[in-house]
Every structure is written in structure tokens, then in C-alpha cells.
């Protein structure tokens, strides 16, 4: 439906016809949802996921158009193709939802997440943490004598990899924003 950027509720080029929706394979999809920025809209979206038993792996939300009162919610979810189609259709029913884009099937997209990692350590470990941070293009945003706070931006996989490397070097806290994503090209 929204996968082909057609109007909400339209059947033309229905995505139902394009993909085998009744397979058991669990897939991960990134959904971009444009909503009216009104009270309770986030509760409606996440209430739909909890009420119908869908998964949320990651959730990001912020206002993107102050004058138009619109927010963009980016959700990474997993399910069989049938469940993913249901999630999109159910999201489309919510009255303040304008658009549901499935970035995973709509062609190439870029995904980025930002994370802050606090790494406490001394001596060699501290030097090694700095060296690895340089390789991952993470920057130091705070430093004390016994710990760093690194800022890293990248795909969730890259952040996972960086966090794994920092763990033996004294990773003590991590804060992640969740995924923000946009389709590539026009």
C-alpha cells in the first residue's frame, strides 16, 4: 500500500500482489510514519503494537514540521511478511497518521543511529579505547581523568560492533537514540 507511495487506502499497485505475504520467514522492516503532532499520537502508535502483539525493536520520534504540526516516527519491527503488511495497514487506520512508508521494501534507504558511550578505564585500556574510537570515527564529547564519553553515529550494526569492542575496555553506560531513516534519491 504505502510501500508504493500511493494514497492511504488506495489499492492501485497493491503491495499485497507484489510479495508473498504468507511466508513464515521473520523479517526486519523499518517503517517511517508521518503523523499529526497532537497529544496521544505516540500512545496510539505504540498502543497498537502492544495491543496486537507486534514487536518494536527500535523507536524514534520527533517533530519535523513545527508549523505543520507533523512528527515523524521511525519504527524498526520484525515479523512475517503477513504481519508486516498488517502492521502497515493497521497504522494506516489511525486517524492522525498521514503516511506509512516501509523503507525496507521501497528501495534503498539510509539508516543512522546516534549513541553515547561512557568508557571508564586507565592506562593501556584508555589508549586503546581512544584508538578504536578513531577507527570508528567516534568523537570524544566529554573527558575526565578516568573516563570518556564517545559519540558515534552509524548504522545499528556499527554501533553494536563499537559497543562490543568497548565492553572489555570499561564500557559502563550506553544511550542510543534509535534509528532515523530516509529513502535514497528523490
Amino acid at each position, binding site marked *: 500500500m504505502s510501500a508504493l507511495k500511493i494514497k492511504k487506502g488506495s489499492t492501485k499497485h497493491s503491495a499485497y500482489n507484489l510479495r508473498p505475504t*504468507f511466508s513464515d520467514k521473520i523479517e526486519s522492516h523499518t517503517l517511517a510514519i508521518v503523523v499529526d503532532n497532537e497529544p496521544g499520537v505516540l500512545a496510539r502508535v505504540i498502543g497498537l503494537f502492544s495491543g496486537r502483539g507486534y514487536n518494536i525493536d527500535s523507536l524514534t520520534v520527533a517533530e519535523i514540521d513545527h508549523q505543520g504540526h507533523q512528527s515523524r516516527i521511525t519504527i524498526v519491527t520484525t515479523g512475517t511478511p503477513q504481519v508486516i503488511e498488517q502492521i502497515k*495497514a493497521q497504522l494506516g487506520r489511525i486517524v492522525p497518521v498521514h503516511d506509512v512508508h516501509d523503507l525496507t521494501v521501497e528501495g534503498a534507504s539510509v539508516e543512522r543511529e546516534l549513541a553515547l558511550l561512557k568508557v571508564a578505564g586507565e592506562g593501556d585500556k584508555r589508549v586503546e579505547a581512544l584508538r578504536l574510537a578513531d577507527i570508528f570515527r567516534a568523537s570524544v564529547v566529554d573527558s575526565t581523568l578516568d573516563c570518556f564519553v564517545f559519540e558515534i553515529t552509524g548504522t545499528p550494526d556499527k554501533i553494536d560492533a563499537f559497543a562490543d569492542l568497548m565492553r572489555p575496555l570499561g564500557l559502563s553506560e550506553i544511550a542510543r537514540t534509535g534509528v532515523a531513516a530516509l529513502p535514497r534519491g528523490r
Partner: protein
Amino acid sequence: MVVQALKDQGVDVVFGYPGGAVLPIYDEVFQQNDIRHILVRHEQGAVHAAEGYARSTGKPGVVLVTSGPGATNAVTGLTDALMDSIPLVVLTGQVPTFMIGNDAFQEADTVGITRPCTKHNWLVSDTKTLSGTLHQAFHVATSGRPGPVLVDIPKDVQFASADYTPPQKARIDHYQPQVKGDMDEITELVQALEKAKRPIFYTGGGVINSGPAASQLLRELVDATGVPITSTLMGLGAYPANGKNWLGMLGMHGLYEANMAMHDCDLMINIGARFDDRITGRVDAFSPGSKKAHIDIDPSSINKVIRTDIPIVGDVGHVLEDILKVWKSRGRKINREATQKWWAQIEDWKKINCLAYSQTGKAIKPQHALSRLEALTKDHDRYICTEVGQHQMWAAQYLTFNDPNRWMTSGGLGTMGYGFPASIGVQIAHPEALVINVAGEASWLMNMQEMGTAAQYRLPVKQFILNNERLGMVRQWQELLHGERYSHSWSEALPDFVKLAEAFGAKGILCKDPADLDDAIIEMLNFDGPVLFDCLVEKHENCFPMIPSGEPHNKMLLGEASTKDAIGSKGAVMV
């Protein structure tokens, strides 16, 4: 301002119950005569009455209740309306904005509580947006797939004044569901229809929600193509029960011929139904050999349960019109030879006569009671409501519906206590009509306080209670599934219904002898006022035919003899 907005939306009746947080609105209601207010005896009753009103008129039902308990009591009705796609606008009072969040007296997070059980809801925090929001509420409730909406209005917002926004200026453009179906898909459906050897129409409540024109188009299409038609519980009346292509209701307690035809068809055309689990039985064995088309205004209904080959998103009325147009322009083709064989097969199934029963013995069989009710009332301008349980299924089987909007029942949610208040709503909308609520004694008692409403407004609603002193459907399942251990499924200390009726100034009739039944029903019909008809029926009668849970359509149980070990352990976990 609220009353003005309701008037501008064409509202003539509001069902409600006052309380502290809605007093300013009630004060406005008091000072006008255009909108009639019906005082119920419990907020749940108000919502069900509004459902009955909406279902029987096609207009949205309007409810006005107070904050806190007023709103929480409305929740069951809201959920019921959401499941059955009934348009309602529910207005709730709320504590003043500056007290929200303080656990004030009669405060509840109404929009939070009702978010999952409404199509949409609003908390109005500024009087400037109040009238615009009310117009939006009516728009959302009635367009697309209809449903209940709720507007929560804090008391200070009710008191303050602001400029009124007329309906024409309200912001509704952002919610415009698609009504026209895709022409390519419609053409594909017509092509499939032309070639089909064993086609069937499977229709639902969506046809009725789409309006009388949709039912008319459906009749034209069915009669012109000669294709058999069955319907869900919610869709009864869209195609007339006396129509020649009618197979009867399908589903768990549907007719044998309808379910067999669904199982064996090669083209299933679902019009405004949603493949509910009461219909499909075991999903992986549901109509295995058929191509399936699905017309629904809600895209999320399509492919939710059953994989659809031809999905058409759109309003049933619009889509049917296009189907007829395309089918006619392509030469009105149908595979007559094959469909004749198909009909011959269906006639064989009909010979099973799955609704047969024998009225023997001294007790009235519930099927007999309904058959007599049907015979004695079918020529009336008649509206039927039901509660939930065995009596509901028997009513669907033994009563006939030849017009839409004549059948009010709680399908999706299965709410015991729905029928009595719904019958009040129907009678308010149709003061001259015969309104009968077919009830079980247990369901009826769940909202019996509405006797006060019926008496106050002198509503001649007929409460036809099939009294088996049991929770009949629960008892039936316990017999079939739980080793005949009848855990808490019978009622002791039932009231004397005749005296109960008289206590409210209504008429009570007790009938226990089959020989007296006709006279008693006629007495009920002739009485101008509310009647409680206590029909004592056979206590252990089971409702058949039945698709046991976990089984496909062609494994129906037709009667007592076939029930032993019919439901496997897998089926037993289903409801």
C-alpha cells in the same frame, strides 16, 4: 455550543446520564427542544441504546455521560461498537483542565482508557477548538469504516465561551478514506465471476453499513447472476431471507448448506465481511479450493486472516455499482451450465434440513418458540434485537430478515446485556414499529435496570426471554468440551419476571405450555407498552448445527447424536 454542534450535525436524540462534570451541557440541553434527551439507567445502557439507534437508522448514535465512572461504564459499549463498526459519538465530561492529573473527584484518564476501544478520541483543552472537534468527530465516526469516537470535554471548557465553528469550516480533509474500488481489480473479479463453476457471495455487516443502496445493488447483482449467497450474523437482511438465492447464515452455528457451499466453492466473493473466526473455523482448512475476492473499506481487513486473491479496497456500494457496470458491459456472462450443477449440489445439502427439530413433550423447545414468534410477527414492521448466547443463534436461524437495518445484535464482542438497551434505542428511532428483543434470562438480567427507561418513556419494547434457567451456550460448551461438569452455568434465585415487570409498571407474561404459546405471543403483541415475556423453555436444548472449534466447514455437527468426542484437544483451547 455543544448543543448547537449536535443540531448542525442533524442529531435529534441523545442518550445519556448526567453528572457533575457535564452539568453545563445538561443545562443547555434543558433550555432547548430540538434535541430529545433519553435518560437511561446506566451508561452502558446509553451506549447500547445509541448502537441500536445507529444500527436501525444508519445515522450516528450520540451519547452524553459524565466523567470518571460515567466514562468507564461506557467502555463496554464503545468496544462493542468498535468491533461491529457502529458509528457513535460519545461525549464525556471531564474535570476542569487545571485539575487533570490531580486524582480529582470523578477523574479518570478517559482518552487513555478509551484509546484502544474507539476509532479515535479527543480531549478538548480549549473552547476555541470545541465545535470544530465535534464536527470532526461526526466525520470520523461516519466515514470509512464506521466506528465509535469519543470527545472528552473538561468542565471549564464547557463553561467558557468562544466563536462557533460551523460544520462547513471544520477540518476534515485529512481523513478521507477511499470509497471507489480499483477498476483493474474489479474487472479481474468480473472475469473470475464469468468463468466460475461454483461461485458464492459471502456478505457481512459492511453491506448494511454502506447504506440501503448497497443492499439494493447486492440484490440486483445476486439475482442477475443467479449466484448463491450466504451472510454473516452481522449482514442478515442485506439480501432478503425470502430471496431465491439465499442459503442462510454461515459460520459456527450457520446452516449446513451455507457452510458446505463455502467449503466447496471455487470462487468466494467476500463483500463487507472480515473472515472472523466464527466464520472461518479452522483457517488452514478454510475453503481450500477457492479463489477469494475481498471487498472491504478497511485495508487492514484484507489478508488479515485469509489470503485474498483479488483485494478491492472501497465502499461496498460504490464497488458493487462498478461490478454491475463492468459485468453488464461485458455481456452479462455467467457459466450457466456449471452453476446449474452447483445449485443441484446445494439443493442436495438443503435436503439435510439442518434446522429440523421436533416439538415433543411438555416443555417448549426454544426453536419452536422462535418459529411461532416468526410466524406471528413476520408481517409486522419488525425490528429484532438479541442478547448473546444460544437464543441469539436460534434467532438468527429461525427468524427471517428481508430488509437491512432490522437486526441488531452484538456480533464481534458478544456482549451479554446488549439487546435490551439496544431495543430501547431502536424503539426511540422507530416509535411505531414492533421492536422485539430476543433474550436469554441471564443476558437480560445484565442490563435489566433499563426497565426504568422503557417505563419512563412508555416504550412498547417486547422482551422475549427464552428462559432455560441456564447460561445455555456456556452449558453447551461444558457438555461438549468439559465432561459435562456444569461449572457455574445455571442461575438460582431467578426473579419472577412477571412480578418484576409489574414492579416497573410494565406487563409480564409467563408461558410454559406449548399449547398456550401462540395466544401468549398475540397477547404480547397486542399490549401497547413494554412487555416482559418469560418463556420457559427446554433446559438442556443445544444449539445446532455447529462447527466444533478447530474444525473446518465440512465437519459440522448436526445434532445430539454426532457430538461425542467431536472436539479435539487442539480445538478445546479455542473459544
